[in-house]
Each structure stands twice: as C-alpha cells, then as structure tokens.
C-alpha cells in the first residue's frame, strides 16, 4: 500500500503559511501504521452507539490505538522541533 510522505517539519518555505503543529501532523502520518487498532475502535464505537445503559465504553480500544500512534510518533517528533 502506497503512503505518500507527509512532511511535518516547519521549514522557511512555509513561513507565510500558518504554523503546522508537528505532533498533530505526525499523528496523522502514523495513522496508516495503526489501522488495525483504529478499526477495532471504530467497531467498538458502533457497538456502543446503541447502548442506553451508559455503562459501555471504548476506553480499551481507544488506548490501544493511541498507544500504537504514540509509539510511532515518539522517536520522530523531536527531530521536527528546535
């Protein structure tokens, strides 16, 4: 599967454009790597949508997804910062 490279650094050529937060940008670019937990989370959301009792929640799948994204973003983020 081809993933286009997303540049998340804040170079001078983009000085006239408003600043892009590198963390948000990297989290977007890491999404393809974490498709499986994301789909699990979305499946959970569907299951929870119809719940009336208010006891069901998707914290587990949410944590799994964001842990995957964090692991991907962590080593790369500081290279984009001063």
């Amino acid at each position: 599967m081809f993933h286009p490279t997303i540049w998340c650094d804040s170079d001078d050529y983009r000085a006239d454009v408003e600043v892009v937060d590198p963390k948000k940008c990297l989290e977007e670019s890491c999404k393809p790597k974490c498709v499986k937990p994301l789909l699990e989370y979305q499946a959970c959301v569907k299951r929870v949508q119809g719940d009336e009792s208010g006891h069901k929640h998707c914290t587990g799948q949410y944590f799994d997804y964001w842990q995957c994204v964090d692991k991907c973003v962590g080593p790369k983020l500081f290279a984009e910062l001063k």
Partner: protein
Amino acid sequence: MVGGGVIQQILRRKLHSPSLATPVRSWLSSKKAHVEAGSSGVRAFALLGAGVTGLLSFSTVASADEAEHGLACPDYPWPHDGILSSYDHASIRRGHQVYQQVCASCHSMSLISYRDLVGVAYTEEEAKAMAAEIEVVDGPNDEGEMFTRPGKLSDRLPQPYANESAARFANGGAYPPDLSLITKARHNGQNYVFALLTGYRDPPAGISIREGLHYNPYFPGGAIAMPKMLNDEAVEYEDGVPATEAQMGKDVVSFLSWAAEPEMEERKLMGFKWIFLLSLALLQAAYYRRLKWSVLKSRKLVLDVVN
C-alpha cells in the same frame, strides 16, 4: 487468588464495566460448592477452578484499571538524556517564557529564585529586570509596618494564590500543584508532563466528562481539571522559533526538568569522572591484592612420613 477475585468483582461493579466473568465465575463457584472433602482428583479440580476464576478476574481488572492508571506515555528522545548530555539552555529560556505567560497564572514555582536563572537561561541584568517587574511584600520597617518593594534576584518566583485554599477556590476545588519538582514527583515525569500537555483529545465513545473537567487519557482517571493550555502560537518566542504546541511542550518540560534537577550537569560530570577514576583504582587494588597473596597462593606443603 479467590479473595483477589472478590475484590475485583466489587471494583468492577463500582465502575460499571460489563464483563462475561460474572456468570462464569458463579458457575465455577457453584461447581466447587458441590464437591466437598474427598479424593485428590476432586481437590485438583477445585484448584483448577480457583485458578481459572483468578485469571478471569484479572481480565476484568485490566479493563477497569486502564483508565485508572492513565494511558502509558511514550519515551521521547530528550536532548539531555545521554550520560554526558547537558540541558538545551535555549530551550530552558523559551520554556521559562512559556511558564511565565501560560502557566504562572495558576501554578506556583516557589522553590525557584530569580538568581537561579542567572547563567542558566538569562544574564544577570535580564534576571534583575525580570525580578524588578514584580511587587514583593517585605518588612516590617522601622515603623513596624509591612511594605511592598520591587523584586530582587534573591526573591522567589511569585505565587499566583495566597494559599492552597485560595487556589482551590479559584479552580473549582482542584489545586494546581507547585511545579518546582513536578518532573521528579511523577512517574516518568518528563515524558508524562509532555504527553499530558500535548495529549488533550476527544474522549472515547461511551465516556462523558462532567462539566468543569476535561478529558486527558494520560491523566489517571481521565478527567483533569486543567483545560488545554498549549495552543499554537499562544506565545511569541524571542528567538523566532515557531511556537507550535509541541515546541512549547518540549521547551516547558525542559525548563521544568532543569527546575527539578538543576544539578544534573554537574552530577553527570562528577559521575563520569569518579566512575572512571574508581575503575582505575579497582584495577590497582586487584593487582596489589594478588601481589600480596601470591606468597600464600604459591606455597607448597610437603608431607614427610618417617618410618
């Protein structure tokens, strides 16, 4: 193990998370109740039942504890992490600016004085000028009265509230902690604070946070009183670095790391020097010991039998 299972049952009921364990557990306990004293085979089965119950209880514990412990924060490659790495002092200077403009309205740093900043983030003149901007209560004077004067280098960083009660009252009952030691006062402090500040997100489906609190997955329990404070370009850096949320987070955590461990650079230098010297001393001591013991270790004992 079964006792632990009971406790997890109570916890789970309190947190209202659904699980399949309840009907299975009651089925297993009823099975165990049927068999009383008897053969070892029955006892083995009872033990197996206890073990399975414990395992199933642990699975419910995992889902109940996840939000309680907060999402584990990743490890970021801090520039001051290495065995001989110093702080990024430009980052500390920017971080202090972020603290002053964003955080100081609620968080005190009462263990740091203006003079501590000299030579670390500011020159003496700059620090003096910064100190002079605040008003400090001093006294009593010759007439016995307290008076206010402009700040000096020896004064502590100003406190936003007079006391903890005032701080709680102004923040809906929550106390914004003093930040002087925060990176040492939290597990994996530097990574935790950075993840927390930059980690405000929409809550997962099924979780609702009450009015006045905000969702943050890294905060134990998930509901934090502090709103998202770092927003792009909230601060304009003197050195022209783009003030993105992540940049401000990195800088403010560098500043807080320095505030909690100002001795870090000297400690690393000392540690490197003395570990090296003591290794040499170890080699010398080992040689000297073996030299002295060689006399005994190379002696010969002769048994002479006289007929």
